């Protein structure tokens, strides 16, 4: 990998106390790791040794000193796709027809390719950004702001505060905190009130042959995040069964749903 590091910000002289610094320097995600490995091996996934990949991965985990479930899951997915590719190469199919399995495989392969390309784009552009940041570090903005002697000129930022407002602000700050560490409400959310089957029924009842709906529309009256998750699972299952088609223009666009045929 190219050297991406550049002199970072001083952080009130306390940068040494940042807890996660070291960890970040070591680890790149599965997609990034995979991309690095493919590039190192002249872009040939086929030649890539799965055992080598797994071994490299395990070494990374070792260095991280912890197993992140999400990272592991993602890695397994990527590795499985690669394994599938290798298997198909080793055991060529005899029949010419394309089965559903084949289609699913092609889809997965294309998805992996798209992600590799996307990942590479951002990685390449980040090298340029790093250079600009490095140049930007050479000049420093003034941050001193108002000095002691002009203190009386500063509009009081805490006009009209009461103890209760302060307490509320504190509680709000703590809630934000909980989210920042990834401990979100899902940890305390009650069990879903809807089954996947009934969610499927409800999705289908919203669709007719003429018009579709968006996932957001369908989830509009759901109160619990858990219920949204259930509806999403139902959505995935309906796609798998070929009952509906979904379409999303880009990551943040609504998921459009319509009946198949």
């Amino acid at each position, binding site marked *: 990998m190219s050297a*991406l*590091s550049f*002199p*970072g*910000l001083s*952080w009130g002289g306390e*940068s040494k106390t*940042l807890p*996660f*610094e070291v960890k*970040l*320097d070591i*680890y*790149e995600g*599965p*997609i*990034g790791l995979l991309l690095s490995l*493919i590039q190192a091996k002249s*872009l*040939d*996934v086929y030649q890539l040794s799965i055992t080598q990949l797994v071994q490299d991965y395990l070494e990374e985990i070792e260095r991280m000193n912890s197993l992140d479930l999400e990272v592991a899951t*993602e890695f397994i997915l990527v590795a499985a796709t690669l394994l599938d590719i290798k298997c*198909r190469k080793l055991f060529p199919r005899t029949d010419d027809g394309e089965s559903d399995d084949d289609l699913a495989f092609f889809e997965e*392969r294309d998805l992996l*390719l798209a*992600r590799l*390309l996307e*990942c590479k784009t*951002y*990685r*390449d*552009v980040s*090298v*340029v*950004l790093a250079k*600009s*940041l490095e*140049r*930007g*570090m*050479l*000049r*420093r*903005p*003034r941050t*001193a*702001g*108002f*000095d002691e002697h002009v203190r009386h000129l500063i509009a009081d930022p805490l006009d009209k505060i009461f103890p209760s407002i302060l307490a509320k602000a504190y509680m709000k700050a703590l809630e934000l905190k909980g989210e*920042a*560490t990834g401990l979100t409400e899902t940890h305390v959310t009650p069990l879903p009130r809807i089954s996947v089957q009934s969610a499927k029924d409800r999705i289908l009842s919203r669709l007719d042959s003429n018009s579709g709906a968006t*996932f957001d529309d369908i*989830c*509009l009256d*759901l109160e619990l*995040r858990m219920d*949204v998750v259930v509806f999403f699972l139902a959505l995935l299952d309906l796609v798998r069964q070929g009952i509906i088609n979904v379409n999303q223009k880009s*990551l*943040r666009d*609504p998921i459009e749903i319509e009946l198949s045929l």
Partner: protein
Amino acid sequence: MSDDAPVEAIIEAILLVATEPVSVEVLSRVAGVKKVDIEDALVRLEQKYQDPKCGFGLGKVQDGFRYYSKSEFYSYVSAFSNETNDSKLSGAALETLAIIAYQQPISRSSVSIIRGVNSDQVMRLLAIKGYIIPVGRANGPGSSQLFATTPMFLERLGLNSLDDLPKLTDFAPSLEIAEALEISLRQDQN
């Protein structure tokens, strides 16, 4: 032109206490003079600061102006602030920053999806460093918090606005690379 207080001096007094870039509009309102007069004064100030005996200059970011130490004196400034290079941004952090810069506003989970790895901690670090900031919530289901880059990020890049970011299309992998990747993933047809 006011005869008692020179516009340049008013601008200097304001920029000295500013901690963020100040727009011509704000300068004009606070100084009580027309925007063109502020603009003229800014040009004169820029000329004045070009003197090599001057250690700082004006920087323009996101339509605002702010004082900067000149980059020629970087070594002195960093010696003064006792900086060490041990707070480097990692490749992971830079990659994350790039994704946020181009896709903002974007949620933690969307970044994680693109990178293929949980990016919460990297994003927390970037927020604490002041490069990104939460800007509100998506209004879809689940309503996750969205993040965007800060003016400081643009400032560090020396850019006026997000439009000045390098075009992403210039960085799309070349056809050869895309093909090579695809071939390597393609199943043998025979």
